[in-house]
């Protein structure tokens, strides 16, 4: 049983980065190779897990031989695997990028353990099967993220990330109180059992609702849903580039993932259209406001950060549509579109931030209006920004194009046509802010004969953006199959 557990990809996804974190702490001089090794190992574990789930259906694992009511459980269904795969691939890209990013050995040594811890927390969060485990991972994620974000040590970074940390703590405590209420009511923490209990016990509606509100609003704080996004732009904009990428692409996404899980899985019996509509309205406001602020941002990374606020907003637009769509292909489409947009944003935003970091290191600043010459000097990076940008806008053939297509289709089919206006407005604003950056690449600055090339930094950015644009847009079919893998039973 133990050997079984040790080699189980589901477990390895979490233990390998933890092990890596321990090793890099113990041997700080070899942090980079060890870190890369851990990253590769973790990523391959995640891929193995993905293959496993693809072949055998949803997996579930109970650690320590306890009853499901008590135990620490891990589970991997299609949704979790899809997000975990994205997170691990992005994290691998970030790792490669980061291996060359930090010049200061002090920072480099601090980075790797924290980063691997964050990774472990991420994987744990996606794969956890019980509410408390989720809480622990959530906390770990929040703490490591804040610590990483403050890594540059600048005043802005520290104060922004201190705020982030406090927000995270507030959110987690709120979540924990919700968990406590649920346990009070149903006496179990296992996601599946709680869900059943909620569906079965109509009497406990008040407690369930209170728990739902506490958990969701706590997570909404962490997910930076408008207007609770106040902490995000300064925190993401001032972090080191690889950290910004991870924060924007993955960490925020983890909270959203949890909200979606709770809303659709756990609390489905008690969530109505009105509440979903309310969240979607906040999402719509996030789309418009975030995009507008991104358009007005003076710095490249601030732009990217506000763009994250907007992109998160899109995901909430799906809730009222899912609320009124009965199970069947249309609902599958909506769900897949939701995940597809989250995945695309993960890849695109990480690519964008990595490229922006490269621009910043080369130019010494990231003021958009003064980037002309830099864009000329870094063709590959500019190209990566262009690719990532078109995924953010939702231009074909990116994954978010398909996502938006299905979102609008669902909106029209369910009669909630007004979301179409939100989506189009958001897309227009997004194109405005993306091309505000890109137009700098076509200035009159003389083209240098020698381009700056830095494969270790450029290739991850380019590849991540490329995945967002080409792979997810043109071959998103398997996602449907993957998401269908929640009833288990295997292929």
């Amino acid at each position, binding site marked *: 049983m133990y050997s079984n557990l040790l080699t189980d990809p589901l477990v390895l996804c979490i233990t390998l980065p933890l092990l890596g974190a321990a090793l890099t702490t113990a041997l700080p001089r070899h942090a980079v190779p060890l870190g890369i090794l851990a990253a590769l190992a973790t990523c391959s574990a995640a891929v193995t897990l993905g293959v496993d789930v693809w072949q055998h259906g949803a997996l579930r694992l109970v650690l320590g031989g306890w009853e499901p009511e008590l135990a620490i459980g891990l589970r991997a269904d299609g949704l979790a695997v899809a997000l975990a795969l994205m997170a691990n691939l992005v994290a691998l890209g970030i790792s490669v990028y980061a291996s060359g990013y930090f010049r200061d050995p002090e920072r480099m040594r601090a980075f790797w353990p924290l980063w691997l811890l964050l990774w472990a927390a991420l994987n744990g969060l996606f794969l956890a099967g019980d509410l408390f485990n989720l809480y622990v991972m959530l906390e770990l994620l929040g*703490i490591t993220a804040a610590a990483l974000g403050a890594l540059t040590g600048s005043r802005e970074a520290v104060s922004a990330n201190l705020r982030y940390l406090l927000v995270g703590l507030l959110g987690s405590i709120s979540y924990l109180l919700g968990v406590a209420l649920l346990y009070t009511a149903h006496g179990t923490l296992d996601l599946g059992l709680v869900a059943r209990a909620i569906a079965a016990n109509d009497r406990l509606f008040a407690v369930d609702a209170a728990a739902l509100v506490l958990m969701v609003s706590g997570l909404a704080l962490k997910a930076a849903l408008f207007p609770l996004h106040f902490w995000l732009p300064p925190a993401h904009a001032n972090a080191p580039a690889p950290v910004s990428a991870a924060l924007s692409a993955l960490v925020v996404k983890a909270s959203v993932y949890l909200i979606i899980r709770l809303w659709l899985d756990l609390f489905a019996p008690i969530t109505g259209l009105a509440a979903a509509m309310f969240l979607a309205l906040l999402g719509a406001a996030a789309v418009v406001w975030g995009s507008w602020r991104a358009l007005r941002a003076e710095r490249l990374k601030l732009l990217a950060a506000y763009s994250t606020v907007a992109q998160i907003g899109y995901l909430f637009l799906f809730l009222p549509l899912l609320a009124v769509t009965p199970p069947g292909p249309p609902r599958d489409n909506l769900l897949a579109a939701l995940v597809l947009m989250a995945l695309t944003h993960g890849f695109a935003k990480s690519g964008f931030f990595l490229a922006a970091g490269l621009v910043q290191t080369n130019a010494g600043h990231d003021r958009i209006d003064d980037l002309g010459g830099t864009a000329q000097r870094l063709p590959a990076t500019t190209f990566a920004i262009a690719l990532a940008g078109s995924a953010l806008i939702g231009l074909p053939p990116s994954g978010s194009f398909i996502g938006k297509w299905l979102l609008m289709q669902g909106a029209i089919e369910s009669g909630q046509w007004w979301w179409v206006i939100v989506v189009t407005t958001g897309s227009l604003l997004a194109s405005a802010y993306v091309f505000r950056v890109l137009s700098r690449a076509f200035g009159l600055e003389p083209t240098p004969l020698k381009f700056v090339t830095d494969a270790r930094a450029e290739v991850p950015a380019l590849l991540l953006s490329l995945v967002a644009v080409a792979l997810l847009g043109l071959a998103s079919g398997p996602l449907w199959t993957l998401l269908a893998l929640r009833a288990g039973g295997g292929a």
Partner: protein
Amino acid sequence: MTAQFLYGGAGLILFVLGLWSFLVHAPLLRKLIALNIMGGGVFHVLIAVAYRGDGVTPDPVPHALVLTGIVVAVSATALALVLGARLQDEQRQG
């Protein structure tokens, strides 16, 4: 039973008070203390849940949760203090 409710209710009140303090008071230390009080409130609730009657062994799960929660809270507080201290250093220097 009433004791359980009292205990749990007090936990909730602690949570709300902590929240109030967290939001209203600007200094970092007060915020951290407030957060810990909120956490304490939640732990109270969990401990109250664990009670299964006199003489009956309490439910171990909430206990485990509380223990873990305390660890997490401590580490988070530590990190916040470190960051706060750095901020203060810089403010002094600047």
